[in-house]
C-alpha cells in the first residue's frame, strides 16, 4: 500500500492512520472569495496541464548570455523623447514621486531640459514625450526603471533561439535615478556611465566570450545571494570574468580602474543582469494558451501588474503596496512610496524573495529571521509549478528554487508571492529610504483567473 493523501475531514486521515498506513494531511482552506467557479473551470480545462508543463519547460530551457553592451537608441531603437518605465502602463498624471523623479532625471540627461524641475511641464504637456513600459520593449528596469535613448544597456541572448532582453546599467545605492533622485550628482554619475562605463563594458564584453549569466546565477545562489536584494557574489564573479578584457581594452588606465572600482563597489551591479536573464527565461512561456503561469510581475509605483502565459499581453493590475521592512537613517513608513520596479521579475522566475532561504545574510535587512527565510522559500513551493534544477538552495538539501507561479494555486491557497524589495522615497528626488518585503495586491490573481476561465470556456464551446 502506498500512502494516502487526505484533503478534507481529518477524521478520515485518522481512520487511515489507525490502520498503520502513512497519511499526508493537506491543510486545506477555502480559496480566495469568489474564485470557486473559475477555479473549477480552469482545473477542468483540458489544455491546462500540458500547457503548464510546456510553459515550465520553456522557462527552464533558457540560458542567458551577456553578448553586448550598447546605448538604448541602438539596441532598442529608442528615439528622443521616448521614455521606458517600470511596471504596467501609466501616464504622468498617475505616476508616483519616484517615477516622476526618474523621468525628470532622464529628461535632463537627454538634454530635453536644462533643469530636471523644468521637465514637469514637459511631461504635463505630453506632446513631445511618450511613456511606455520596459516590458513592452524586451526590457526590464529596476525601481523607476526609466530608460532613455542615451543610456547604455546590457544585451542578453538565449543562444538556442537568439531571443534578446535588455536592462540598463546599475547606478549603485542612495541618491540615484532609479529611486527617483535627480540632483546634480545623479546626473553627473549617469553621464560618466554613458561616457566611460558603457564603452568600457562594451569593449570588454565584445572582446570576451559571452558571459554565462545563468551560470553565475547558479553559483551566486550558493554563495548567499538571492539575486534581488543581495548580488554581491554575482557582481564580483562578473568582474572576474570581464576584468582581463577591461584591462586590455586600450582605454585610459584611470578610466579602466575607475570602472572596475565602480562595479566592484556596487553590490547591486549584477541585479541588472539577473533581471533580464529572468525575463529572457519567462518570455519563453508567453502566449502558451491554457497556461496559468505568471510570466511577469511588475510595479510602476502606483499599480502592481502581472501578466500570465495564457492571457497574452494583458496586464492585471491593482494598487501597489508599501513594503514592510527597515528604513535608512531617519526615514520612516510615511516617507516610503508604494512598491516600484520590474525587479519582481526575479521572484517570478523563482529567485529573490522565493530564494530567501539561500540568503540568510540579508534576512535582517528585510526585517526577518533565518527560520522565516526557510519557511518563505518552502511556502513559495506551494504556489509554483515546479523547481529549477539549475538553481538550488544548499540549506534546503539543494532543493531547486520554486519556479513558475501558478495563478490558480495563489487563488486556492491565498499565499501571495513574497517579494524582496528596495523602498523609494514618496517624494520625487528623495532616493532610497529603505528595504523590505512586499506582496502583490491579492485581487489581481482572481482577475487573471477570471480571464483564464473565460478563455477556457470560449475554447471548450468553440
Amino acid at each position, binding site marked *: 500500500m502506498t500512502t494516502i*493523501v487526505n*484533503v*478534507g475531514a481529518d477524521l478520515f486521515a485518522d481512520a487511515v492512520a489507525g490502520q498503520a498506513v502513512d*497519511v499526508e494531511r493537506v*491543510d486545506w482552506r*477555502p480559496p480566495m472569495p469568489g474564485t470557486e467557479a473559475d477555479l*473549477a473551470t480552469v482545473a477542468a480545462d*483540458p489544455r491546462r496541464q500540458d500547457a503548464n508543463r510546456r510553459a515550465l519547460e520553456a522557462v527552464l530551457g533558457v540560458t542567458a548570455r551577456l553578448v553586448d553592451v550598447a546605448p538604448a537608441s541602438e539596441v532598442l531603437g529608442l528615439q528622443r523623447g521616448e521614455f521606458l518605465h517600470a511596471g504596467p502602463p501609466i501616464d504622468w498624471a498617475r505616476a508616483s514621486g519616484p517615477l516622476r523623479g526618474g523621468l525628470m532625471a532622464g529628461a535632463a540627461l537627454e538634454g530635453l531640459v536644462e533643469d530636471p524641475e523644468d521637465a514637469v511641464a514637459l511631461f504635463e504637456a505630453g506632446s513631445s514625450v511618450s511613456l511606455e513600459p520596459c516590458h513592452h520593449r524586451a526590457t526590464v528596469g529596476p525601481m523607476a526603471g526609466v530608460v532613455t535613448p542615451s543610456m547604455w544597456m546590457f544585451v542578453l541572448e538565449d543562444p538556442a533561439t537568439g531571443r534578446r532582453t535588455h536592462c540598463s546599467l546599475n547606478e549603485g545605492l542612495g541618491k540615484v535615478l532609479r529611486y527617483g533622485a535627480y540632483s546634480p550628482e545623479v546626473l553627473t554619475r549617469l553621464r560618466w556611465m554613458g561616457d566611460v562605463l558603457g564603452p568600457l563594458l562594451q569593449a570588454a564584453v565584445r572582446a570576451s566570450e559571452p558571459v554565462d549569466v545563468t551560470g553565475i546565477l547558479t553559483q551566486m545562489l550558493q554563495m548567499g545571494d538571492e539575486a534581488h536584494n543581495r548580488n554581491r557574489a554575482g557582481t564580483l564573479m562578473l568582474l572576474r570574468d570581464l576584468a582581463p578584457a577591461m584591462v586590455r581594452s586600450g582605454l585610459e588606465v584611470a578610466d579602466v580602474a575607475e570602472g572596475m572600482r565602480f562595479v566592484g563597489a556596487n553590490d547591486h551591479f549584477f541585479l541588472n543582469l539577473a533581471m533580464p536573464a529572468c525575463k529572457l527565461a519567462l518570455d519563453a512561456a508567453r502566449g502558451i494558451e491554457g497556461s496559468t503561469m505568471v510570466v511577469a510581475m511588475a510595479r510602476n509605483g502606483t499599480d502592481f501588474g502581472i501578466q500570465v502565459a495564457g492571457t497574452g499581453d494583458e496586464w492585471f493590475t491593482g494598487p501597489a503596496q508599501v513594503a514592510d521592512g527597515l528604513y535608512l537613517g531617519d526615514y520612516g513608513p510615511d516617507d516610503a512610496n508604494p512598491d516600484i520596479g520590474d525587479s519582481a521579475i526575479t521572484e517570478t522566475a523563482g529567485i529573490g524573495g522565493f530564494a530567501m532561504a539561500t540568503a540568510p545574510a540579508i534576512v535582517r535587512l528585510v526585517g526577518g529571521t533565518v527560520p522565516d527565510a526557510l519557511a518563505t522559500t518552502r511556502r513559495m*513551493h506551494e504556489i509554483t509549478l515546479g523547481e529549477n534544477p539549475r538553481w538550488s538552495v544548499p540549506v534546503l538539501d539543494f532543493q531547486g528554487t520554486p519556479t513558475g507561479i501558478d495563478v490558480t494555486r495563489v487563488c486556492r491557497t491565498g499565499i501571495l508571492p513574497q517579494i524582496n524589495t528596495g523602498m523609494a522615497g514618496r517624494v520625487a528626488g528623495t532616493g532610497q529610504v529603505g528595504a523590505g518585503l512586499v506582496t502583490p495586491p491579492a485581487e489581481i490573481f482572481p482577475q487573471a483567473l477570471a480571464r483564464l476561465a473565460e478563455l477556457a470556456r470560449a475554447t471548450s464551446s468553440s
Partner: protein
Amino acid sequence: MSSTYVELRPGAYADSVALLQVSRSVQQVDGVLAAQVAMATALNLEVLAEMGFDVPSEATTNDLVVAVRVEDETVLERALAAVAEALAETRRRTTGGDVDLAPHRTTATALREQPGGLVLVSVAGRHALVEAMDALDAGSDVMVFSDNVPLDHELALKRSAAERGLLVMGPDCGTAVVDGVGLGFANVVRPGPVGLVAASGTGCQQLLALLDHAGVGVSSALGVGGRDLSSEVRGLATREAMRRLDRDPAVELIVLVSKPPADDVAADIEEYAATLATPVEYALLGPGRPDLTAAAEAVLRRLGHAVPAWPVTGAAGPADGVIRGLFVGGTLASEARLIAGTDAGHTFVDFGDDEYTAGRAHPMIDPSLRLEHLARAAADPATGVLLLDVVLGHGAEPDPATLLAPALTGLGKPVVIAVVGTTGDPQGLDRQVRALADTGAEVHLSNAGATRRALELVGGPL
C-alpha cells in the same frame, strides 16, 4: 449571572468535523453552559440563533464564529483558551519527521512528497474538483467522499481519468477498500475472492458485513459514486474499477452493487463485463429485484459457499401503527423502503441525504440530528415500530451504541435495528449489538431481515 460572548474571526477556517470536536471540547469546560464554534454558514447561523446567540449580520461563510455562554465572566477566559487550544490541535501536523514543517496546502504539493499516493477528498463538494484534478494530474487515483459535487464536475473528472487510465471513486463515495486499507466509512474485512464495485456506500458495507459473517473475504471494494451508472456518466468509473479487479489475480468474482443502471448503460456495462476474464455478479437494488441480503446469498452460492443464518439478537414485541425508518445509510433506507413500501404510511428518512448534510457532518459522524428526530418519531402516536440502522467501521462514530442506547431506553415503542459491521471493526460488533439489545431492541445483521421483521411486528404483508 450568565454571560454570552460571540466573536467573528474572518479568514479563519477549519472543516466542519474538526469544529464539531472543537465545540465539544469547549462545552466540556467547567462553567460553560453552551458553546458553538462553527463556520458562519446559513445552517450554522440558524443553529446559533436557536442556541440564543446573536451573530453579527456581516458574517460570511468565510468567517469562523466563536459563540460561548458561560456561568459568569470569570469562565470566559478559560473557555476561549480551550477554543484556542482545540483549534491549534486541529492544525497540528501529525505526520512527518522531527522538523516542524508547515503542512502542504494543496493536493498537488502534498503529492510531490508522496508520489503515487492515493488521494482522499472530503472538502465541500464545490471545491472537490480542483483537489481531485490535482490527483489525476499527478497520476494518482482519487476517492471523492464529498457530496453535492456538480454533475459537470464529475464528468470532467471521470473523462480526464479515463484518458489517463486512472480511477475516480465518487463523488459521494462513502466506502472503499483498496489494497486492504479501508477508506471513508469502511469495514474491516479479511482478504478473499470477492472484488466489489459499488455505486453505493452503505450497500457496499452491507455486503461486506454479510460476506464477512459467512466467512468470505473481500480483496477490494471500489466505490464509483451514485451517479456513475446514470445515462450522463455512463459507467466511466465502473468500467475502470472492473478493469482493475479483473487484473487482480486474487479476485475470482466481481460483484457490482448499484441501483439499476439506465437501460442503455446496463447494456454497455454487460457488454464490457463480457470482455473480462473474471465473472461478474450483479447486485442491483430496485423494485422487483433481490435485496442486498439476497444478493449476498447469490454471491455465496456462486462461490460454492454455504449460506448461513443471518444473526438476530433480542426480540421486539408486536405493535400497532406504521414503521418509522430513521437511517444514516442511504442505500439501507432505500432497501427498507423497497421491501416495506410506503403505501401503508411507513416512512424512511435518510439523514445522510444531501438535504440534511449540506453544511454539516454526515450522520455516521455526527448522530445528533437523528437523535433529535428519534424522540419525536417515538412520541408520534401513529408510530408502530422504529427501524434504525447503525453502521460500524473505520470513520464512523467510535461508539454509536453508547450514544444511541440512552435515547432508546424507555421509548415505549418496539425498536428494530440493523447493525452493519464486521467482527474486525474498531467499535466491536458484539459489544455494539449487546448494548443495543440490552435496551430491548431487536438487532439484525441483515437490513432486509430487520425490515421484514419490522413489517411483521406491525402486521404488514411480508
